[in-house]
């Protein structure tokens, strides 16, 4: 039996096909303005027996596809992460609009989680807007921050306030890489706070699209004073987990 997991996030859609607990295909596309058509596009030409949706578009998907089941990102990431790192006891998941921390027990069951409320502070969207403000392409942003010589304090967590703060720092002639580093640090502080709130201990995995940013990974590790584990494709963990949960259900 082939099981599909589809993660309809605010920024991107991921699809993973699993057969007998093995990944046989992965796909990704932008969410755009019409998540369901984009989901259909990403599903073109593939065959599966069952599908489970996760991500902010899961309920929309369930309406569009009668046979689809849904699972939250929290449980889906837990399942995906534990497949790659069976020892994981905590997860930091930073996606486009949401950031989450999750504590697991030895069996991989979710024991506690925290999630940002309402605004995009501390999410991928925050980093994306700030990269744009500083004239960096998103994939240059992390490396540029990593190359900065020193940390610079950014005080505002609110995306809109941080934009004004960045504008005034630029006007003061501050180094753009240092500003970038300061912005990363502010997201890291929030993420670490969230991990502490769930009582994260033991091996911690960083999943979600933002884990592709090398500066974020380095700074989270530094802040926690331990190595943080990163899956090969952190953005796929939600879709992978959804597919695995479906597969395990049979």
């Amino acid at each position, binding site marked *: 039996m082939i099981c599909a997991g589809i993660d309809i996030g605010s920024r991107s859609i991921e699809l993973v096909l699993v057969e007998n607990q093995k990944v046989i295909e992965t796909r990704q596309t932008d969410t755009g303005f019409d998540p369901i058509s984009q989901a259909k596009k990403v599903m073109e030409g593939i065959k599966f027996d069952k599908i489970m949706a996760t991500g*902010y578009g899961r*309920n929309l998907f369930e309406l569009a596809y009668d046979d689809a089941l*849904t*699972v*939250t*990102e*929290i*449980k889906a990431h837990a399942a995906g992460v534990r497949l790659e790192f069976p020892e994981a006891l905590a997860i930091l998941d930073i996606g486009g609009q*949401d950031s989450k921390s999750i504590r697991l027990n030895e069996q991989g*069951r*979710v*024991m*506690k*989680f925290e*999630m*940002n*409320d*309402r605004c995009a502070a501390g999410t991928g969207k925050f980093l994306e807007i700030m990269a744009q403000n500083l004239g960096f392409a998103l994939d240059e942003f992390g490396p540029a921050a990593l190359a900065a010589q020193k940390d610079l304090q950014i005080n505002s967590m609110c995306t809109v306030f941080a934009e004004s703060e960045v504008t005034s720092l630029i006007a003061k002639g501050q180094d753009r890489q240092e500003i970038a580093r300061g912005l990363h640090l502010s997201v890291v502080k929030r993420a670490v706070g969230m991990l502490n709130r769930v009582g994260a201990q033991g091996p911690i995995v960083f999943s979600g699209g933002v884990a592709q940013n090398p500066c974020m990974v380095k700074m989270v590790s530094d802040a926690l004073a331990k190595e943080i584990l990163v899956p090969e494709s952190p953005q796929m963990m939600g879709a992978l987990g959804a597919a695995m949960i479906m597969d395990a259900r049979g």
Partner: protein
Amino acid sequence: MSNDYAPMWESLGMDLKAHDALLDVLGQGYQDIYLAQKNRPEGMSYFDFVMSEVHGLRIKELLDEKKQNRKIIGSYCVFVPEEIVLAGGATLVGLCSGADFAIEDVEKHLPRNTCSLIKSSFGFKLGRVCPYLESADMIVGENTCDGKKKAYETFAGMVDNLYVMDLPQVKSSQGRSLLKKEFERFKTAVEELTGNKITVDTLKEGIKVVNAKRAALHRLATLRKADPVPISGLDALLANQVFFYDNPARFTESVNKICDELEVRIKENQGVFPAKTPRILISGCPMAVPNWKLPWIIETSGAVIVGEESCVGERGTRNLTDDSGQSLDELMEAVTDRYFKVDCAIFTPNQKRSDHIVEMAKAYGANGVIHYGLQFCQPYIMESIPVENTLENLGIPCMRIETDYGMEDMGQLKTRVEAFIEQISD
């Protein structure tokens, strides 16, 4: 309904256009949230009727009472003793507060960072859309949290009949004595308003009527221990909300009637949700009509609410008043004792509330507790952390939610609630 009652509302000085708009939203919300539920007890049709007439027939009844020279007293809090109001031959009603209204006007008077409950009560006044408020001969404000007590200072300038009641913050003998004195002062104020002297007999009768109302809700609460649950949390919440508006005797009779029906359901193993549905206890801030957002999210995400540790719920109604006293003073002592047990988060320390949450979680077989805090409601939000710690140390999962009456966090709330349900049901 608006056509029939328009002259009545107009006579109360209400803004008819704004009020129509409010009723439309309320009606639609009720349709989507309440009437869309499956397997509802037949007895709920009474509450459906009450809600459909909440600003209509009930107000007409109150105005008819006024014509008979009976006074109407409006309240914002469970600390206002209904026993005393009834003993004075007056009627107590809860005042409107459960939806955002006229927010731009409200923010001319209150800081933006004020809880929705307080802002809402101002909005209903400023927008002239609460017929209860406009019918009231006396409005009782009470010094609970800092937000409310400071808000009443401003509110006093908007209405000419505000009576402010002080409340203790510590459950000490001095605290109890303050409450007793305030209840004595309130008794005198009610007597002055109504022109009726409160006697042993009238106070005994008042206690009897209110106790019967509470006992009916206790009966309803007990039936929710069954699995499958015979009534949804939304419907039970509605009964707890209508408690504040309805004619007491009729309310008691209607709740008991539903209970008769639920007992049959339990015997026949019939539930409103399937057996083994994850069970959630809600704890925290009161939910005034039409604040149904969180319960609705919970019960459309695969769980059922089995209890409300709330002032609109068990915290507000769990204790009865001892009516065995033979003198007025003995009865007033009993009234004081009863209200002094309410474990509102304004009290410090307030261990009893945590104990009660644990007790309720166990009694109703809850798999988890959702602590509901209104944004900027310091007492409940601050207590949510020790409450969570207490529960988790006992192995009872708890999730803290902080929200308001707005709808913009629906998506995130749904994800969090669904994830919590997954967590407690795996």
